């Protein structure tokens, strides 16, 4: 792909990313939403994040890997512990990345 085509693709990516971000907050904020929908929306944050976290940790080399040969799963354990204890993003990142780096250094994975 040429340089100009790359830039046009990036603008296209931006447009399709921004539309779903804007539309609900723009159109729904002034509406009175049904109580059940509000209740449902309350559980969106934890669900989105659970849906992002599980594949990123449990899918290794394109398949489900729940064994100790999955370094992402091993690194996730101390990360989760730190995350629940400190609720600190940066500390979790440092511990997780360091854990993975050390695992790779010392284990044949």
């Amino acid at each position, binding site marked *: 792909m040429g*340089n100009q085509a*790359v*830039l046009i*693709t*990036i*603008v*296209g*990516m*931006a447009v*399709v*990313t*921004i539309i*779903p*971000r*804007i539309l*609900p*907050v*723009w159109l*729904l*904020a002034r509406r009175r*939403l049904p109580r059940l929908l509000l*209740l*449902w*929306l*309350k*559980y*969106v*944050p*934890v*669900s*989105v*994040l*659970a*849906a*992002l*976290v*599980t*594949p*990123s*940790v449990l*899918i290794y080399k394109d*398949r*489900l890997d729940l064994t100790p040969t999955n370094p992402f799963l091993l690194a*996730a354990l101390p*990360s*989760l512990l730190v*995350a*629940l204890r400190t*609720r*600190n*993003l940066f500390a*979790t*990142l440092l*511990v*997780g*990345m360091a*854990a*993975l*780096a050390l695992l*790779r250094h010392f284990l044949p994975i």
Partner: protein
Amino acid sequence: MLGYIPAGFAYGVLAGKAGFSGIAALLMSVLVFAGAAQYAAVAMFSAGQSMATIVLTTFIINIRHLLMSAALAPALSKWSSIQRIALALQMTDETFAIHSTAFSAAPAQPGQVFGVNITAHTAWIGGSVLGFVASGLLPDLRVLGFDFALPAMFIALFACQVKGKATIVAGLYAGITAIWLHTGGHPTMAVMAATVVGATTGVFIELWATKQSS
């Protein structure tokens, strides 16, 4: 909010190694500002995928923002349209998680919200630039564990959303659904569908719990 520095760094290194121009790498972080989609896009660009494929995949990966934006909407009824759109432009997994926690405790404060958004976006752009510059020097991202930046960020953000049993069960159902769709060959639909399953589970648990107590 500084979590976006290492995550952005990882993106910058990937973009540099994939042969992106500095302008293109930077522009993506400024305009798109979406971790998982940018990692995927870099891989697709280097695999020679078409413009339509890359844009469509980006749309599918980022469609989850629709639900996140809807979840923030009820707290923003007092805000002007311009303010709400400005907030939504910089809504990512991370800023969304921070805002939804803040809004559940106190009314939405524009100053605080835009402070979070601008800091997170600056960290993402700064991390991207540093990663891009360092990409020529680093042999492999994996040695320093930078490929764990995004999973670690998701873990931290997930931990912040765990408040009581209903959220844990909702998260469990969402997680299982996401894994099931991933292994079943539908990874692009996984987050959206799993969110619907998780949130619906949460509603059922809460309704059931209220019935028990009344």
